[in-house]
């Protein structure tokens, strides 16, 4: 990947590097040419890496004290909160860390949507990212079950019951997932086991995600291909490292605020009631980051079709690089797409809100319209827009707008003419 052959200075370094080129890798990572016009929405890659590592480390410690048993899970969590040294801190970091992880991943995804980062030649990066996102949702869902509170239990019941909608095999698949005739101890233990496994799968995919990123290099706010290295790039270290660190610190201040001053604000009060199969909570709601999909699920009257719609909403994102037909990446040069982009953001937020409300009356109606619009955006608007939209002029290089070259003197090309 590196453009020039790297030769370590010391003899030992050279000896080692000839056998395991880890120094070449380190050199590649520090020298990695990065577009110099990346804005702060690009710092979320680093923030997400931090989130993953934090979740793994805090999770590791929690697993030392947690007991995965239907009779003991709830009290073992209270044991962590009360008797383990700084157990309350570790647990609150882990629980709020999940929310912060999703906050960061949503910003990361919507940044990619705005700047067209999923387009050729970055489709594989995008697909790997979507796989990470799906695994994250699985990990978060199973993690939420582990404290064995009322929402844990009933959330697990609702979600696993979705599989019973599968024709013919539904019942047996659900029973297989449960390890019994209902959500019970076997369900809890297997969820714990998988909850421990998934983060390491995510870690592996993150390595691939970054590897795939380092082949074409970063996209950038104006979405053009740039020469690397050139006047348009800076080396990853120290420029991007320090910028990522700065952004991470601001993120951490927000994170710390949640952990220390409102650690339970993002959770549901019912999850401090121990799971009771005999008492159904008035409203069963998933964690906030799953709400848009929950709204889509409930807005379809038929159970099987609802499940299909929910999974389709995810799958549609996976094939997004082929749904968006526009050759221009960045929304900056796509005036119409920019508007539809913000409609989509609003649509997803509305879906999230409706997911938290009871599925009845006006809420259900709005959720249905929003669900329809979600699919409309990806299946109709994006493919059509790419062919119809009049895009504005795209600069040839990053340096040009950065140095403020006058529009008349600079050479620009109109993509519409070329394509």
């Amino acid at each position, binding site marked *: 990947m590196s453009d020039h052959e790297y030769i370590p200075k010391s003899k030992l370094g050279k000896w080692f590097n000839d056998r395991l080129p880890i120094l070449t890798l380190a050199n590649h990572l520090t020298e990695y040419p990065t577009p110099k016009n990346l804005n702060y929405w690009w710092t979320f890659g680093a923030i997400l890496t931090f989130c993953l590592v934090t979740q793994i480390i805090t999770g590791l410690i929690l697993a030392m004290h947690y007991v995965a048993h239907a009779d003991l899970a709830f009290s073992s969590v209270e044991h962590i909160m009360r008797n383990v040294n700084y157990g309350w801190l570790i647990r609150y970091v882990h629980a709020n860390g999940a929310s912060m992880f999703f906050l960061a991943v949503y910003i990361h995804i919507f940044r990619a949507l705005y700047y067209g980062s999923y387009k050729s030649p970055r489709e594989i990066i995008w697909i790997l990212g979507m796989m990470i996102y799906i695994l994250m949702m699985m990990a978060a869902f199973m993690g939420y079950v582990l404290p064995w509170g009322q929402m844990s239990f009933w959330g697990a019941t609702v979600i696993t019951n979705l599989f019973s909608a599968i024709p013919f095999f539904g019942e047996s698949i659900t029973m297989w997932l449960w390890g019994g005739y209902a959500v019970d101890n076997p369900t809890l233990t297997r969820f714990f086991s998988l909850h421990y496994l998934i983060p390491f799968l995510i870690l592996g995919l993150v390595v691939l995600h970054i590897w795939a990123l380092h082949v074409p290099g970063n996209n950038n706010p104006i979405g053009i291909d740039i020469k690397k290295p050139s006047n348009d790039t800076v080396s990853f270290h120290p420029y991007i490292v320090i910028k990522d660190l700065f952004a991470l*610190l*601001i993120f951490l201040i927000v994170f710390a605020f949640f952990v*220390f001053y409102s650690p*339970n604000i993002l959770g549901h*009060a*019912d999850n*401090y009631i121990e799971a009771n199969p005999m008492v159904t909570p008035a409203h069963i709601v998933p964690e906030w980051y799953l709400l848009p999909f929950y709204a889509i699920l409930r807005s379809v009257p038929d159970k099987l079709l609802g499940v299909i719609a929910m999974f389709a909403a995810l799958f549609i994102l996976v094939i997004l690089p082929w749904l968006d037909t526009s050759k221009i990446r960045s929304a900056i040069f796509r005036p119409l797409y920019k508007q539809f982009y913000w409609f989509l953001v609003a649509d997803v937020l509305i879906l999230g809100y409706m997911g938290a409300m009871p599925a009845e009356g006006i809420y259900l109606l709005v959720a249905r319209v929003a669900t329809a619009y979600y699919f409309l955006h990806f299946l109709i608007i994006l493919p059509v827009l790419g062919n119809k939209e009049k895009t504005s002029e795209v600069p040839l290089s990053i340096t040009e707008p950065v140095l403020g070259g006058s529009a008349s003197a600079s050479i620009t090309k109109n993509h519409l003419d070329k394509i």
Partner: protein
Amino acid sequence: MKNFLKFFLTILVFCLKASSISAAEQTEKLLNPGWGFKGFFGKFDRGSLQRGYQVYTEVCAACHSIKYLSYRNLSETGGPEFTEDQVKAIASQFEVTDGPNDDGDMFTRPARPADNFVSPYANEKAAIAANGGAYPPDMSVLVKARKGGADYIYSLLLGYEDPPSGLSLDDGVYYNKYMAGNKIKMSNPLSDGLVEYGDGTSATSEQMAKDVTTFLAWAAEPHLEARHKIGFRAIIYLIILTILVYFSMKKIWSRVESKV
């Protein structure tokens, strides 16, 4: 960068708003006597915690367990901070079953500070049977397990009223304007002068409700004071570090013709 900062500020404000909205969603607006343990420097009022413990033992403990709390917690920093001798005396009033001993028999002994609070009933079924079919919930994390938290518990304790005309209640069911559905199987537990405070505080219903709610808030979150203290330091540290990193970043980026 401005957008970036604005974004996070919005998130924070939104979450704070959301919390106050969710509290206000109740049909009746919850009472709030002003809690000292909220906010950046929030701490429990020691006197209130000790009085609250008294209310819990003399009133609530007849039916409600608080099983995740240990007697030793009562003397730990950030709690009611009874002296260790006081806690030993408190614990020794209760009997716990221990064993088996060398003869293979279970035996009872006075509780020690290391023991968990002794529950009023042997098990949940016994508690339900003794309370007309309603389970008096364990109070260990009750404040965190109810929407509205401390405000809700406080309001509920003071929310007993005569039922509106036309509403007939079964025996053993009471009207409470803060309870979901307004029907509650717990009779009004507080009345003025029900307990006699050792420190001379007048035991009005409001005072007892506030004290016992403070006690329960501590029971649900015994490390709250440590959390607030560490949190404040952590955030100050992060802010200073952020400022330092900001200037380092400016310096490093001044080498290239690009703004950051």
